[in-house]
């Protein structure tokens, strides 16, 4: 299993910069997720690793060896595409065995390996079918088997779950994680779905507009986001962002003023991020009024018009404890503080109502 390094890797298509110079080191056997919205450069990064795109600048290394000039076919990389990209005219067995056939692996050995990997992804009953006769989940497993059969040094997953329905997605998440642990193959997952990234990956790379915003564990990204983008991209419902001003060591949000929690100078304009689940309704000094509520099974999401601005609040419990129009008080236990100018997080805790 390989370590992978991207050293100032850049990709331009004519005038368009798809990927600004990026540095990234992936450990051997690690499961890394690249998370970001469409057009953030995550698929470009994946195609660069696969050798389908060539970098415009910088160096890609597998196990410390430069592979910029090595073609896709010689990189020993397995890919699973969002569309699965199974060959429609081949049977499942032929699809899975295709990489081995190209490597001129003897037929009996190839057959043995195809059957073994088919058992691993649980499609051994389907080997004689054509892709068109398979369900989405089955096609997905076959695509995984085809990517794994040549024992790749790097496994690349390009939005592999987004064409599946919710139940199957949950099952396949666990399945892919299990396979990755069993085989110990270095894996890069590209996704726009934070749940996939958080549940499957060891570390997450959050990208936006061709740049890496932050690299870290799910907890790092959630609790200590580097920027407003990361803070707002992770978490459901999304974090509340309240714009405010800072003067004389105090932060002013709407009609209220808060003592700043840390020492050091504050920028003039700040943004305070408050997670919806950190807010308590019914206790605290801030006054507000419930505008609306949505049931979400085990919890309710309330939209509150408060003294500091509009806030989304998550409250556990299946039964509603409030109704629209009701006057409430609220407070929160922790918040994040960002510089509104460069959108980076400030290295001090955010204001909390006392």
């Amino acid at each position, binding site marked *: 299993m390989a370590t992978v390094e991207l050293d100032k890797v850049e990709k331009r298509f004519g005038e368009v910069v798809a990927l600004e110079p990026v540095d990234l080191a992936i450990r051997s056997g690690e499961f890394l997720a690249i998370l970001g919205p469409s057009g953030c450069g995550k698929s470009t990064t994946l*195609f660069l690793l696969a050798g*389908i795109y060539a970098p415009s600048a910088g160096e890609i290394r597998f196990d410390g060896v430069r592979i910029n000039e090595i073609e896709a076919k010689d990189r020993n990389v397995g890919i699973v595409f969002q569309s699965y990209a199974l060959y429609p005219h081949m049977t499942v067995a032929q699809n899975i065995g295709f990489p081995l056939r*190209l490597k001129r692996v003897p037929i009996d050995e190839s057959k043995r390996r195809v059957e073994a990997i088919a058992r691993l992804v649980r499609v051994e009953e389907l080997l004689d079918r054509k892709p068109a006769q398979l369900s989405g989940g089955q096609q997905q497993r076959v695509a995984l088997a085809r990517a794994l059969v040549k024992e790749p040094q790097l496994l690349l997953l390009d939005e592999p779950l987004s064409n599946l329905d919710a139940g199957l997605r949950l099952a396949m998440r666990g399945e892919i994680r299990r396979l990755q642990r069993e085989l110990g193959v270095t894996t890069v997952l590209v996704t726009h779905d934070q749940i996939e990234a958080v549940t499957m990956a060891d570390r997450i790379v959050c990208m936006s507009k061709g740049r890496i915003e932050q690299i870290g564990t799910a907890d790092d990204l959630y609790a200590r986001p580097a920027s407003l983008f990361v803070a707002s991209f992770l978490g459901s419902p999304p974090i509340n962002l309240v714009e405010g001003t800072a003067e004389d060591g105090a932060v002013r949000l709407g009609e209220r003023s808060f003592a700043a929690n840390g020492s050091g100078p504050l920028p003039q304009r700040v943004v305070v991020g408050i997670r919806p689940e950190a807010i308590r309704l019914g206790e605290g000094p801030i006054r507000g009024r419930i505008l609306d509520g949505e049931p979400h099974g085990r919890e309710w999401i309330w939209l509150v018009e408060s003294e500091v601005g509009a806030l989304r609040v998550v409250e556990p419990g299946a039964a509603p404890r409030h109704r629209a129009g009701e006057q409430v008080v609220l407070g929160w236990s922790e918040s994040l503080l960002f510089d509104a100018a460069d959108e980076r997080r400030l290295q001090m805790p955010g204001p909390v109502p006392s």
Partner: protein
Amino acid sequence: MTAATRSRLDRLVFLGPATALLMLFYVLPVIVDVAIAFTDMGRNLEVTRVTTENVARIFGGDRRLAQVLTNTLVYVVCTLTLFNVGYALLLALTTTALPDRAGAFFRSVWLLPRMSPSVVYALLWTWVVAPTEYGLLNQIVAGIGMPPLDLKSDAPMLVVVLANGFIGASFGMIIFTSAIRSIPQHLFYAARADGANGLQIVRHVTLPQIRWHLSFVTLYQALSLLVSFEYIWLITDGGPFYDTTVWALYVYQRAFTSGQYAYGAALALVLVAAGIVAALVLWRFFDMRALLQRPRIEVS
């Protein structure tokens, strides 16, 4: 109006015009042809007796027919495999691999012959292979210090196949290009990641994906070539002697140049039969029925 009459009327309205045209221009001529083939009709259009002489002449009497038949086979098979399918496929594969603009340029170049009138195109070929030192080919040949060639006399079938092939390749090229374009890009990416080189991608991904288009072009062009003779007629007129006379041209010569209408009709009948047999054999061979199954739109 009841639903039943309404439905019958619909059928008439929708199928009527096409059926009428089909009868008038395809079925009726064949019937007329069969009728004439068994008479002694000549240039004066007079029929004096009903006879099987013409058919007997085809199966034994006409010593030229063996050569004409061979010419037809050489002409159809060579033009079809080398150009209309083979070269068309090569053009489609190479021009889709090129950057878009360059690919479109080369495709337009190969499409040009289609856009020029047949007579102009044929005259150009006459000039290209002209035996004097003014012919295009001979100017090139002279440039490398070789004596002038006279292809039209020495290799007339080559000239005929080239002239038909250069114009015929564009049809397949267009069909194959659009077929290759419609293959999902991810299949090519997947094949590259699976370890396939360029040729292996063509063999294992592109060709299987455009199989139906290959079948269709082969079938359609085989039938077109079987009955086409305009460029041969314009460039060599079947000569020298009968060296490039194909069946369709021979029909034309017997019927209209020599005025043997009845014999021409009988020869044409053989062409009709050969066309039907070729169509059925190729249809079966390519399993075209599978292509036409499964309507995509439900009609109630």
